[in-house]
């Protein structure tokens, strides 16, 4: 992703375009300062009832994300994708960025239990939601049945697509505990593998269904 030059000074000083202050006046709020975005507002953002709506950014704001059952605080710009937040801000590099356009699904994570492309999801959008990544699915000591089956059936080659394959397969088996091969193929057709491991991925998924 291309990084733009920092234009934050222009936003706050030149008044070019809609200033944050002007925008907020329009939103029916009276006072705001740039620093306010790191303080009180955030607690509102996290509150269940979001009554006091504010404009965030364009510079970094501190948000909290609930990832694998643990609340993590981080400073992100609104343009930061969830995939980037996980990898670059929190070191959860199990989630991969392939095409960065939602075509390969290597960035698949669960948002409120549903698989989504974290490359097309903004980190600010994931506030208040349950995020599950490959790091939260199983641990080295206690692998998820899908992870075990992937090892047993040699379902990865270079491994880049594997975490997302596992996330997609694990979600699918949760809702379809007894699938046939055709159903497994349909369920995994969004996940690309350039090494061509699909036959073993399908075998592993069927094998995992029998253990779950």
């Amino acid at each position: 992703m291309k990084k733009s030059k920092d234009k934050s000074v222009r936003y706050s000083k030149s008044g070019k375009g809609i200033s944050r202050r002007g925008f907020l006046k329009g939103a029916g709020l009276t006072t705001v300062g740039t620093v306010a975005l790191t303080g009180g507002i955030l607690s509102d953002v996290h509150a269940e009832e979001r009554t006091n709506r504010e404009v965030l950014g364009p510079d970094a704001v501190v948000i909290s994300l609930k990832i694998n059952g643990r609340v993590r605080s981080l400073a992100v710009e609104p343009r930061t994708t969830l995939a980037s937040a996980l990898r670059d801000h929190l070191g959860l590099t199990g989630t991969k960025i392939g095409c960065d356009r939602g075509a390969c699904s290597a960035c698949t994570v669960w948002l409120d239990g549903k698989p989504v492309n974290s490359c097309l999801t903004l980190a600010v959008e994931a506030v208040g939601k349950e995020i599950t990544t490959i790091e939260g699915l199983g641990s080295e000591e206690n692998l998820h049945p899908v992870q075990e089956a992937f090892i047993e059936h040699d379902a990865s080659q270079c491994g880049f697509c594997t975490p997302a394959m596992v996330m997609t397969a694990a979600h699918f088996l949760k809702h379809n505990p007894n699938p046939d091969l055709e159903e497994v193929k349909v369920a995994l057709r969004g996940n690309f593998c350039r090494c061509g491991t699909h036959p073993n991925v399908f075998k592993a998924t069927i094998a995992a269904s029998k253990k779950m």
Partner: protein
Amino acid sequence: MHKFSWYEAGSVEDALAKVNATVSEIVGRKPNNSSVVFKAGGVDLMDLMKEGLVNPETIVSIKSIPGLDKIEYDDKAGLRIGANATLGEIENNEIIKEKYLALHQAVAEAGTAQLRNSATLGGNLAQRTRCWYFRSIHHVCFRKGSGVCYAQHGENEFHAIINNSKCASVHASSVSTALMAFKAKVVIMDSEGKKKEVEIGDFFVHPETDEKRENILKANELITEVVIPPVTTGTKSHYIKYVARESHDWALADVAVTLEMTGGKCRRAEIVIGAAAPVPLRLDEPAKALEGHSINEKLAKKAGDIAMRNATPLAKNAYKIPVFRAIIKRAILKAV
């Protein structure tokens, strides 16, 4: 992707009061352009932003608006789908599967399961074309106001074969192919709170009418719902999407057919094709050919042949003609 500010709207009124531009209006504008645009699932917007085609200054999220994702069905009023309903929610709706099969099929084949969990119905209708000249920041194409359609003499294998002389892009929404066959209406609300219902065929704008937009939405308007009339018990439907890859892909050609059958005869037919022209096309003459008859292979083939009579393919996409003939015929026969 350039920096932007972020606001989560609390209501449709709140969102409409903030927004000052449509995504189409800001295509090609440099950053710091004071634009405020909507975002729902953001599947298309994020793509346009990552390519540098669209650089909004502020994004107003409408995903946070409560109640905009309802799917309701009533035997008399028909089906109402909130603009924020995801394609995944529509795909898994049992009533839609039972009564509006072609819509279910079209939705289930749109994108990947991951995308369908984010993509909303409103966003699907408002998305921009996948034409690679339009998507390229290096091409100031017809749709960007230059008057030059690079597809005419360029790489045009995925482009339009009908109504394609000025701009050969095709509309990206395969879901709308099915919605049109069910005579859906798009409900649009404006910043004064006024609502209007627009026939989905009138929602899309042909580039010869206005090259910079693909639908009628103005900056102060938002899709709130899609309404689909009830279907009679004898209504059958089928959707076929023809793609290059079996896994998931944009349509090379797609078709939705609805047939109102009574006593073994077709009373009314709707045939709509996508990826054929810059907007989804309702085929009146081929549909008329079916009405009043019992459906057989010969008649279905005739409908497909009539449909392609006026096609004007470009150098690399004449293959679409036999594809359309085949899938139109096949969809009619499958629907019965």
